[in-house]
């Protein structure tokens, strides 16, 4: 299983490469007023208006630092009207890693507010064995936020038409 390694603060997380559509540089975003702080804004990806979630703020409560290695990861987000692109803003998106799915374990602790944090596994390439936690894209957005975002996207998509 190939995963995209992202770093948020001191911790490393991973995204399943199968849901990743493309990694692009962090471009300038159109801000969404009165949106929750996790929503970084709107971006255009391959002609499609894409909502962007600040993963660093979501996970650590701090805005993502504007670094060169801070990139936008476009993933497929399943919606009732089919999969839609969702932008995730994260730090040090520079590496992919092939991991053994069998070495992944349940963390044993379930945080009710963060259902998206999945299994943890030991990195095969990093000697000291820092743990990597998988992030489940499907459980990433709460219901209210999902409705808000894609309604807004629908509105935004309609506007230029």
């Amino acid at each position, binding site marked *: 299983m*190939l995963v995209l390694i992202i770093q948020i603060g001191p911790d490393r997380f991973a995204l399943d*490469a*199968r849901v*990743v559509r*493309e*990694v692009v*540089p962090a471009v300038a975003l159109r801000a969404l007023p009165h949106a929750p702080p996790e929503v970084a804004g709107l971006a255009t990806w391959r002609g499609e208006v894409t909502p962007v979630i600040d993963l660093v703020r979501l996970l650590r409560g701090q805005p993502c630092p504007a670094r*060169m290695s801070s990139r936008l990861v476009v993933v497929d987000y399943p919606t009732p009207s089919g999969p839609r692109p969702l932008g995730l803003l994260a730090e040090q998106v520079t*590496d*992919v890693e092939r991991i053994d799915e069998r070495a992944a374990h349940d963390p044993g602790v379930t945080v009710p507010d963060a259902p998206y944090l999945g299994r943890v596994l030991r990195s095969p390439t990093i000697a000291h064995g820092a743990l990597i936690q998988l992030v489940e894209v499907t459980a990433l957005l709460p219901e209210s936020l999902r409705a808000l975002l894609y309604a807004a996207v629908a509105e935004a998509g309609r506007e230029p038409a």
Partner: protein
Amino acid sequence: MLKNVKLSVRLGGLFMIFLAAFGVFTLVAFRTVDEIKINSPLYRQIIQDKDVVADVLPPPEYIIESYLVVLQLLGDIDDATALRLYERSRALREEYDERHAVWVEELPEGPLRQALVVDSLTPAKSFYATRDQEYLPKIQQARAEQDPVVAAARRDEARKIVSDKLGPQYEQHRIAIDETVRLALAGSKRNEDRAAMILADRQRVMRWLAIGLVALALAIMMLTVGITGRLTRHLETATDAASRVASGDLTVSVAAESDDEAGRLLASIKAMTASLNSLVTRVKEASIQLMSTATQFSATSTEQEATINGFGASTAQIAAAVREISATSGELLTTMDNVRSVATAAARLADDGRAGLAGMDASMQQLDRSTGSISSKLSVIREKAADINVVVTTITKVADQTNLLSVNAAIEAEKAGEYGLGFLVLAREIRRLADQTAVSTLDIEQMVRQMQSAVTAGVMEMDRFAEDVRQGVTTVARIGAQLGEIIERVGAINQRFETVNEGMRAQSQGAKQINDAMLQLNEGARQSVSSVRELNSATSHLRTAVDGLKTEISHFKVSA
């Protein structure tokens, strides 16, 4: 009438009158002597001598000798005598001519001149012509003839010439001469008579003059007696007054009644008496004052002696003090010399220091320039570092893009399944390369940053150093100026030292002079003491003398 005429004028007038009278007398006497002086004894002597010569010698104007020689030649004579007679004949003729010329010059017109110059000349001339032209040739022929007969004949012819011609001519001449003699004697008699008459006349005049002179002398004598009498009277009055004054009676009064010498003498005696009167009065007063003054003087001189003794002691003390001053100023002079040499050494050191500072100043300025150059070079380095940063950024961007590409490639390859495996490996390699590049660029960036900070620090350090150097240069310049001032001041101090030295020397010399002067003063004080003592004794003498004076003065009777 002659009362107010001065005695000298009166006597002078008398003398002048007498002199005039005597002058008239002398004039008359001299004129008489001048007119009759031919009869003086000396004149008579001279005339007598001339008479003797005239009586003895044949007179040249009378040709009697020539006639005698002619007769002598007729006689029987030898040749030598004949020659002598020829010679004599010639000489006689020359003598006659000479004397006759004299008489022609001398004689005044008159019968005497006619007789001598004209009447006697004609026969004389004929006589000499006959003798020289006829007679003498005959005689010579007769003497030259050998034949006695012929010689006798010639002699006869000659004798005939004498009797016929020469004889009558001589007679004629002699008559003229006799007439001349008669005339001359008559003139002489006339002159003698006139002389006697003049003499008698003048003797009468002189007799009257002598009578006049005697009368004049008598008059003068009488006048003199009169004058002397007046003079004697006045002198007696004066002598009387003077003797009274001499005996101390100053109350005498003299009446001066005339304005001549005697009158003035009396007036003078009167004035003198008055002066003496006041003088003696003043002397009496003065002698009293002098007595009291002498007493005071004695007291004062005693005090002065004591004072001078004190003064001598003081001068001795002053001399000692001046000697100390002299010694002290000598030491001070030595000290000043030392100080001056030290100051001169300091000035020399300061001079050296200034020269060193000048060199240092140049070095500082070089250093300043060098730091400026280094600063500019560091700036260049900083600029280059910025350039490197730009390049590194570009490389980083490229590495970033490469990484992104490789990540996307890996994801795409995964999605391709089995077919993407090779590509996946390739993507991983690319990613590693990008990572290495990124790491290298990070290193470069790090190094450049370090270099930049180092350069910045270096630039700052250099700036600070340059500032320090600048301050150092300023300080050096200031120190140099201060050293210059020090040198100048030391020079000025040197000059002042010179002045002080001069002053010290002068002071030392002056102290020595004061010392000498004090010694002299001391000596003077000693002498003064002895002088004061002498003065004391002199004062006592003076008192004695004033006592004597008072006694003497008391002899004078003084009119109030």
